[in-house]
């Protein structure tokens, strides 16, 4: 017998599955965006573009990626609530995960709505010396966010795949 909250094998077109799909999709967008920016885009920009052109690209990328990542995190919370309602139980592990989610959102807000806005403002007239440390901090915060999201994904696997945790959560 499948555990409570599990998706039945015959329900491929269901709201439950749609919510789960959007939830996983939002994780991919939030995590993938941060990793691509940190490990692919930023090093290539530093090697290939002159400072004035690089800062113009960085400004645009921060704005656009910020909007995408922050929106993806908000979608994660909404679909996460619906997932818990479908699942029908809260465990201590889920409480830890929710606290981590709050920390991730606060860090992402700091990354894009604080550091990003400051970089945008300081570089309005081209490259400025104050921008370099802010960009370095932006990358560091991005790495922390990515690591925390990976930890959240691991906790989610525990919540949905470890039978003892599932049974404990739904028995309360």
């Amino acid at each position: 017998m499948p555990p409570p909250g599990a998706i039945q094998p015959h329900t491929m077109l269901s709201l439950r599955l749609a919510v789960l799909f959007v939830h996983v999709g939002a994780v991919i967008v939030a995590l993938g965006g941060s990793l691509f920016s940190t490990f692919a885009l930023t090093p290539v920009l530093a090697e290939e573009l002159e400072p004035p052109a690089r800062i113009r690209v960085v400004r645009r990328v921060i704005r656009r990626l910020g909007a995408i990542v922050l929106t993806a995190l908000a979608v994660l919370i909404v679909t996460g609530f619906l997932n818990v309602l479908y699942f029908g139980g809260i465990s201590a592990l889920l409480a830890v995960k929710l606290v981590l989610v709050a920390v991730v959102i606060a860090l992402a807000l700091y990354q894009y709505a604080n550091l990003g806005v400051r970089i945008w403002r300081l570089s309005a007239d081209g490259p400025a010396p104050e921008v370099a440390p802010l960009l370095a901090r932006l990358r560091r915060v991005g790495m922390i966010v990515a690591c925390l999201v990976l930890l959240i994904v691991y906790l989610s696997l525990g919540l949905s795949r470890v039978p003892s945790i599932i049974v404990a959560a739904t028995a309360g």
Partner: protein
Amino acid sequence: MAKKNRPPYARALKWLTVATAVIGVLAMLSYATGAHIAVRFLNPHAGAWWNEHEFSIMETAAAALGLLIAIRAGARIVDGAAVRRRAVIASVIAGALLLPVLTDISAALARMGWNASSGAIFDRVISLAGYSIGSILDKVVIAGIYFLKTAAFSLLAGFALIAVASAASIAAAVPASRRSEASSR
């Protein structure tokens, strides 16, 4: 941000948060202790109305409290007065519109327990305070935890709201900056 330089919306938000907390805690204590009897004694109609609505007032106040705390905390992180103002105002309006739905969802999530330890809490409270006071205290503890859990789930939703509002606020600032960028080229 210095207290004197706080914009009017920030001060209004602070007082709204305090008012929501006071209303929520009063409704929670009234629900837990059955204080509607005292109101009924003074005014039967008002007492009946309060008895009918105190639980939903407690839930709504808890959800609103979580939202407001998240919006205020998020606003402190956002840099730039204009971006922050737009983000806060947009998230407060969206929060007010979504509050009935959010209250239902947060309260439903808060009702889920994570184990069956409430019996142990009851026994412990009774052994500490005696049966007559202990059973009232137990109800206050249960209602208080429900209030806090509802506010905590709503806090997460508030973070989501301020995140989207900040993203929209940042994106809205782009066209003007692009114009200045184009003219500087």
